[in-house]
């Protein structure tokens, strides 16, 4: 029981931490790291709450969901990293302009 809530809280913590970092950092690589940390937080919540209570079997559906999520996350990360390189080539910086162009 303790394990469940402990890891769930860590998951929530990672989610908020990632969200905070995503909003305050300007470097794109760091934003991508932040998104990945947020994702790990969500996955942790999903699996922790499915952990078995004393001797029972764990619920396999969230496990499958998280595996799906991990593959989606690596796909998105790869696309984002390739995009960062292109942005850098075109603009000379790996950051977004502060104001969206008007």
């Amino acid at each position, binding site marked *: 029981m303790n394990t469940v809530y402990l890891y769930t809280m860590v998951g929530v913590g990672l989610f908020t931490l990632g969200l905070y970092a995503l909003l305050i950092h300007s470097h794109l690589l760091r934003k991508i790291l932040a998104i990945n940390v947020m994702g790990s937080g969500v996955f942790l919540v999903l699996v922790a709450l499915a952990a078995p209570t004393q001797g029972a079997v764990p619920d396999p559906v969230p496990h499958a969901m998280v595996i799906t999520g991990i593959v989606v996350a690596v796909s998105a990360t790869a696309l984002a990293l*390739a995009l960062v390189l292109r942005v850098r080539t075109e603009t000379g910086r790996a950051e977004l302009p502060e104001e969206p162009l008007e």
Partner: protein
Amino acid sequence: MEAISLLPLMTLLQLVFDTLLGFALLWLAWRALASPELFQAIVLFIAFGLLMALAWVRLDAPDVALAEAAIGAGLTGALLLATLARLEVKNRAKSELEKKHEVRVITEKSKHQTFFFLLRMLLFMVVATGLVYAVLTLPENTSGLAMPVLENLESSGVSNPVTAVLLNYRGYDTLLELSVLLLALLGVWSFGGIPKPYRSFPGPVLNMLSRLLIPLLIMVAGYLLWVGAHAPGGAFQGGSVLGAAGVLLLLVGWRLGTRFVGLPLRITLVFGVGIFVSAGVVFILLGRQFLEYPPSFAGVLILLIEAAATLSIGITLAALFLGGRPEFRRHK
């Protein structure tokens, strides 16, 4: 007698282990996101992935732990390192200026009113507390779908429940997810050619290492694919280990022969989704539902689909690591 008296101590040890792991995770994430240097941030992130895999082990989710160890800690780390290297090489003349700029931004931000900083922190604390409260009030014993999953395991064709969910009960999700992976590669290729070719040659140590390691990785990929039917493992884990073998090949400077870069490569990339969709459609024509496998040969079918998926996932991940369309060569 002894075993019983040791039980509370065992629980205590577990609790200490979990607490330590939890704090280490949070601390690592925080340091990775706040560290002033990007390289350090990435190394910390790789370490974070390792500890995440330990957390999955503790939560009795070995399938997820395998996926995290291969993808989260392994391939994502390699991807990040390669991107960082390209970012730093590309504008190395500018890099000094860039660093100054970065520092200036940071100092400006720290000069920026502490009031807003505190306000932001407060907001995030409220969000986190709200979420934790919501989680704590969840009903305690929802076993979710564990029961129906186990009851139908017999007719699913495999005995590992997670594989049964991924490839049979919720196979449609997996089909779409393989499409996401293929789509990401398409997106990367649509940006253009490989960003920067490397000209340095591997030393003798690396050459030896890769010769030893690559066959081993391919063998382990096959093993994970095979074992997935009844124990933790399966197409994703196998595929990402295969992808790691591909990444290693690319790192020692190996490139696919130009003969294979065109249609043969594209066919291999599409293979996984293609077989999956065809298997689904064939059963519609046979009068069953989409992706409804007859229990008698569900096991064989799942292995077939998984084998195709493993191959495609591996090649796709390696191609993603390359970072661009292989046939297109940019000159300096």
